[in-house]
């Protein structure tokens, strides 16, 4: 897998850049299959978990108006990135593994190699770049729809929305946003590599492809979960100023 990562990155950077059209089609494909699950999941999750529960606890303390501040921590820093990555892994990642796995089983990858076409350059690199960029961009939408979920929770607690936005924008910072975007971009890269690797090493007929998808999605969840832990740790420790409540 490390080898595949190295080869992907090196052949992405080395000319000729032949993967343009495949990149565009992969990118559009990712957008098409992910937008609806992503919107539903981010909205539902942000409404339930940080929205209702956090509003409950703040309500006990008599300060539901500070819910917006909490959403920086919830939507921007944790839930947005994690949900984006889960949906990308579940929808786009599984589709990539199923696609590449099927090609492997039907010996199309071998045929490509016989024709002198490098499968890494022509299949993996465009998927890698597309997933990286799509995950980073989808994160913004996840944050937006997460905030809608938070607004709904605030409305349910009979709160005006003004204080929600004021506390949100006072507590958020550029570091939060770039941290979130950087994190999701790396999540996308992890997912793409794991899913491509599992797809390209599928074997054993019908059950093999299914198993490959299974391993790909489990591997992706564990990988970005662990990476998230390290990243959160580093970001919070190196930028203590984003933690102060304003």
């Amino acid at each position, binding site marked *: 897998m490390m080898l595949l990562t190295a080869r992907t990155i090196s052949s992405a950077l080395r000319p000729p850049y032949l993967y343009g059209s495949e990149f565009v*089609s992969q990118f559009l*494909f990712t957008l*098409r*299959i992910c937008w*609806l*699950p992503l919107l539903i*999941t981010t909205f*539902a*999750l942000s*409404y*339930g*978990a940080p929205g*209702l*529960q956090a*509003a*409950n*606890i703040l*309500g*006990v*303390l008599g300060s539901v108006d500070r819910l917006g501040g909490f959403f920086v921590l919830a939507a921007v*820093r*944790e839930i947005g990135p994690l949900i984006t990555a*889960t*949906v990308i892994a*579940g*929808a786009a990642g*599984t*589709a990539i*593994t*199923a*696609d590449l*796995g*099927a090609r492997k*089983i*039907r010996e199309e990858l071998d045929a490509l190699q016989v024709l002198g076409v490098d499968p890494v350059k022509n299949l993996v690199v465009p998927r890698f770049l597309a997933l990286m960029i799509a995950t980073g961009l989808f994160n913004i939408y996840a944050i937006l729809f997460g905030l809608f979920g938070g607004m709904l929770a605030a409305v*349910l*607690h009979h709160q005006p929305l003004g204080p929600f936005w004021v506390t949100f924008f006072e507590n958020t910072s550029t570091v939060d946003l770039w941290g979130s975007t950087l994190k999701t971009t790396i999540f996308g890269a992890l997912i793409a590599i794991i899913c491509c690797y599992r797809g390209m090493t599928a074997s054993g*007929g*019908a*059950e*093999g*492809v*299914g*198993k*490959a*998808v*299974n391993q790909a*999605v*489990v591997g992706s*969840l*564990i990988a970005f*979960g*662990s990476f*998230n*832990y390290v990243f*959160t*740790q580093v970001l*919070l420790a190196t930028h203590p100023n984003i*933690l102060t*409540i304003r």
Partner: protein
Amino acid sequence: MNEPFIGPREWFGSTGDIGQFSVRVLLDVWSGRVLHFFGEAVRQAGILILSSALVLWIQSFIIGLGACGIEGAYFGQAQGAPAVAGIYSAWCDLREAIPYAFGYMMAAKIGTGIVAEIGAMRINDEIDALEVMGVDSMTFLCATRLLAGWMVLPFLYVAGMGVAYLASYIAVVKQVAAVSSGGYLLVFWQYQNPQDFLYSVTKAMTMATVIVLVACYFGYTASGGPVGVGKATAKSMVLNLVLVTLIGMLGTQLFWGTNPRTPIGG
């Protein structure tokens, strides 16, 4: 490129089929018809424990450590009240994050595993062979898996919750170390009660039931060779993701809503 699943129209189109299929499987289990194959159910339960338990617990550990522990500790510290970390971790672990994390992992590990297995059987005509032998394939394959899930998953979930509690404890008390062990545990245990725990298990088991049923449906109706199995697996994963989240949200709304049931306040 073959486009496996795109718009909302296909989703709604297959909802009825999945519903019909699920009712049939649930009836099989409810009427006790599945008990003809109790041995198979026990075997499936064993496979579930051996192949999935560890992954589910690892996921619980990671989420308990990162999302519930570290964030909670820094959140408490930032407010100048490190003890708040206990409230954050307790609610995060018990009510929200672990049911979701467990649900997503069940969808990924158990769900796609079932689709791959049953789908391959369908492609290799093994299901038709079962029918020819006079075995009710739906009961034999799907109802037994559902029963196995019901037998095993509650216990795996409770154990996973324990793992997550441990992870949060490690993160808050040992790693960030802004609050003493006693201070953390006092708040942590005060902010949960057996009723919350029951609700949490209910939430996770609803997710588990839905995941197994959806996975069985997609596996049972797979077609089109190895490619078809791959596509069915991918499709089941997407649908399960959405359903897990919706169940989580509805569960929160239903069980807690705007009534937090805390030991303080009104």
